[in-house]
C-alpha cells in the first residue's frame, strides 16, 4: 500500500480534534482514527503530536478528560468538548474559512501580466 498520507497542515490539528470531539467524546486513538477516516486517509495524526496537543487543550479548558471502559473492555482516557472548546471551534472554523477562501481566491485568479 503506497503511503499517500501527509502530515497535517500546520496549526490545524487542534481545530480538527475539537471538531472530532464535537461529534462525541473519544479516546486519543479514536480521535486519530476519526481524523484519518474523515480526511479519507489523507491526514496522518501521529501520537507524538496528538498527546501533547491534548494536554495543551486541556490546560486551556477546551476539553476535559475522564477514564472509561471501551466497548472491548479496555480502560481508556476519553476526551470531551467543553463549552469553551465549542466556542473555540467556531472561532477556528470561521478563521479557517476566511483564510482558505482567501488562499483559493489567490490560486484561482487569472494572473494578468503587468503591462505598460
Amino acid at each position: 500500500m503506497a503511503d499517500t498520507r501527509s502530515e497535517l497542515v500546520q496549526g490545524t490539528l487542534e481545530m480538527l480534534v475539537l471538531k472530532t470531539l464535537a461529534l462525541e467524546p473519544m479516546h486519543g486513538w479514536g480521535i486519530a482514527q476519526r481524523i484519518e477516516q474523515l480526511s479519507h486517509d489523507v491526514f496522518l495524526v501521529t501520537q507524538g503530536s496528538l498527546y501533547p496537543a491534548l494536554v495543551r487543550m486541556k490546560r486551556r479548558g477546551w476539553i476535559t478528560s475522564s477514564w472509561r471502559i471501551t466497548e472491548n473492555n479496555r480502560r481508556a482516557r476519553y476526551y470531551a468538548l467543553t463549552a469553551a472548546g465549542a466556542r473555540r471551534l467556531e472561532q477556528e472554523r470561521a478563521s479557517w474559512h476566511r483564510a482558505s477562501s482567501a488562499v483559493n481566491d489567490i490560486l484561482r485568479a487569472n494572473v494578468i501580466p503587468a503591462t505598460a
Partner: protein
Amino acid sequence: MSTLSDLWARFCSVILRGREERELDEELRFHLAMEADARRAGGAAATDVDRQSRLALGGVERTKEDVRDARGTRLLDDSLRDVSYAVRTLARSPGFALVVILTLALGIGGTTAVFSAVDTVLLQPLPYQEPGRLVRLYQHGATKPGDRGVVTPVHFLAYRRSLSSFEHLAAVLTYSTTGEDLTGGDRPERIQVLPVSADYFDVLRAQPVLGRGFEENEENGAPSVILSHDLWERLYHGNPGAVGQALVMSGTPFTVVGVMPAGYTDPMAPGVAAWVPLDLRPGLDASNVDNHYLDVIGRLRPGVTLARAQAELDALGATLARQYADASDMRASLYSLKEDVVAPASRSLKLMLGAVGLVLLLVCVNVATLLLVRGSARSHEFALRAALGGMRGRLVRQMLIECLVLAVAGEIAGLVLARLAMSAIVTLGAGSVPRLDALTMNPGILWFSLAVATASALVFGLLPALRAARAQPIDALRAEGRALAGAQGQRHVRSGLVVAQVALAFVLLVGAGLLIVSFHRLRSLDLGVKPDQALVFELHLPEARYDFTARARFYEDVTTNIEQLRGVRAAGGITRLPATGPYHVWGTTPLTGPNAGKEHGGIGAQQRVVSGEYFKAAGIPVLEGRAFDARDDASVPRRAVVSTTAAAQLFPGVDPIGQRLRTGGFDWEVIGVVADVALDVEGRVAPTVYHAHAQFVGDRNWALTQVVSTSGSPEALLPAIRRTIAAMDPALVLYRPMTMADAIGAGTAQRRLTLIVLASFAAIALLLAALGLFGALSYSVKLRSREFGVRMALGADRGAIRRLVLRQGLVVAVAGVMIGVGGALALSRVMASMVFHVQPLDPGVLAGAALFILLVGAAAAYLPAHRATAVDPRSILQ
C-alpha cells in the same frame, strides 16, 4: 478564567506528578494496543503486530517528553528542584541555618506578641459606639491641677443638672467594698456589684438585651439589679423569665430588671457581675461637699469639643465655689476616657514598643551580617560555577530560593513563638493591665514583621550572589584566599554591622538592667508594715441582718475570737490596707493648735476606720499616746489616732495629743500618733486619720479587711479562722483570703510584667548579639585560615595570632559599647519616668552591661581564634 484553569492544571500536574505519569503511560499503552488490534483485524501476522505497531507510532519516550513539555510545569519543576537543593545546602551548614531561623523566629514572635498587646490595650478604641466622645471627669484642688480625684455627689448632681455639653453624665461607685453575698447556692459566694447612676448605660450606649436600664427615680437605693450575661447564665441558665424575679443579695431581695448583652465589658470595673442603682438621696453622704467618692464619666454632645466642655465646666465650677464655701478651692477637669483607662499602662507599653523596635532592628542587622558573611564565604563557589558555565540567572534564582526557604522557616517558627508569648503575656498581666483579656494577634504587625524579615533576608542574601554574578569569574578565582577574607570595603560593612549589633544589645541591656534594679528597690522598700507574717481577708456584714450595733459588736467579737487561736499574735480590721492606694480622702481641719482657724490650715487626709488590734496586727508602732481600745465606744466623745505626717501638718510644733480636729462632719480628739505607712507600692506617704469602728459604725456599713498576724505560716491558720467565723455566722463569706504581702504586692504586677518582657528582650538581644559576633568573627577567621597557615608556617607564634583575632573581636565590642552608651543617653529621658529610686544613667548598670557585652565579645572572639591556631599549617597550605 482560562488563565486560572491553566494555572490550576499546571499546579495539579506538579502535585500529582506520579499519577500523571502513570496515566500517560497507560494511555500510550492503550494506544499501542488499539493500533495492534487494528492491524490484527487488518490481517497482519500475529507475531509481528507489536513491533509493527511500535514502529508505526514512533518513539514513546519522545512523545512522553513532549507531553511533559506541554504540561507547562518546567519552571515549577526547576523551582522545586531549587528548593530541595537549597534545603540540602542549608542542611550542610545547620549551625548557620539554625541561627538565622532562630533569629527570625525571635524577632517575629516577640514583635508580633508585644505589639499586639500594645495595640489591644493602647491603640484600639474602647468597644463602645463613638468612643471619642466619652470623657472622664475628675475633681482636684485649685493648687494641684494634675491630680485626678474622685467627685462628690453634690458636685456630680450639679454637673448633671446644668452642663449642656453632655448628652449624658453618669457616676459610679468603684470602691472595692462594692460586693454582695449570694447565699442562695450551696455555699456563700461573693460577687462584684457596681452601683451606677441612671444614665450610665446611656453614656456607654450599651443597653440591656433583656429588660431595661435604671431610671432616675431608682437613685434612692431601690432594690433593682441588672445582671451581667455570665451571671444570668449561671443563676438562671439563660431563662428570659429571670427579669422580674427576686435575687437575694447580702440578705436583701433585689428585683432583676435587666440583663446586659454577652461580651459587654465594663470600662470602670471589668470583672463586675451586676449593677445596682447608685443611692444619691440628699441627706446621706450625698449632702457632704467634702466627701469625694464617685467616678464620673460622660458622653459629649456631637460636635462639642473637650475644650468647650471644659470651659462650661469651669464656669459652673466658679458658681459652685461661691455656693459651697467648704469646697471653694475645688476644681474639675475632663480627660478623654480612653486616655484615662489606659494611662496607668501606657508608659510601660510604650517602653515595650521601643524594645520591640530595637529587637526587630537587631534581627535585621543580625540576619544581614550572617548572610553577607556566608555570601562572601561562598563567593569562590559562585565564581567557580559561573566559570564552569552555570547560568548567572539560575545562580541568583537559587540564592533567592535559599533565602526564601530560610525566611519561611523562620517565619513559621516565629508564628508559633508569637502564640506562646501572647498566652504568657495574658497570664502575667491578667488583672493588672486593663483590657488585656481581649488580646488578639494583630494582623498589621504580623504582616509588617514578616515583610521586614523577608526583605532583609532577600536583600542581604542576594547581594553576594549578584556581586558574584557581575564579577569576572577569573578574578574571583585568582584572588581566592584574599578575596574570601573580604575586600576591604566588604569587611568594613561587616564590622559596621557587628558594631551596630553590639550597640543595640547594649541599649536593651541597660534598659532591662535599670528596670530590674528599680523592681528590686521597689520590692525591698519599707512600707511601714510587716506584711510577711500576716493573713488578710474581707468580711462583709449584710445590713438586712446586722444593724449598726450588731456590726460594731461582731467586728470586735471576731477579733477577740481569732486572737484566741493558737499562733495568732494580733488581729484587727481596716477599711483599706496600706500601700493599696488612696481611699476616703476627706477635708480635715485642725480645731486647736497654731493652724486652727487659718484659711488654708485644712488638709486632705486619708481616712481609715479600724477595729480590734489593727496597729499591732499590721506592725505599725504607736509613737505617742495610745491606740484604740475597748474604752473608745459609742458612749464616749469621738477620738482619733493620726499618722506622724498628719500630726505634723495639722498641729505643727505642738504636742498632738489632746488636740482636736474636724472631718467627716464630726469633731475628734487626738489620742495617739502612729508611724506613717506607705500609701502605694512606690512608698509615697500621705497624712492619715484613723477612726475607731465602734465609734463610727453609724456612718455607713464599713467593710473591714481583717488582718491577722501570726507567729507561723499565715496560710496554715486559714482553716481554723474559717471554723471560727462559721461558728459565729455560717452565712458569711470569708472573701479573698491571702497573705498581706500578696495583697499589697498586687500593685507591682504591672511593673513585673514590663520587667519580664523587657528582661526577656534583653536576653534575646544579648543572645542575638553574641550569635552575630560569634558568627561574623568565626567566619572571618575561617576565611583567613590560609593566611594564618602561611604566617605560622613562616614562624609566627600561635599566641600572637590568637591575640590578633581576640583584639579584633574586642575592638568591635568596645566600639559597639561606646555607641551604645550614646543610645542609652538618648534612652534615659524615656526611662526617667519608668525607673524607681535609680538614676536613668546609673553607673553600676552601665558598667554591668558593658562588662557583660565585653565578656560575651571576648568569648565569641576567643573560640574562633583558638580554632584557627589549633590546625596544622601544612593541612591548610596543601
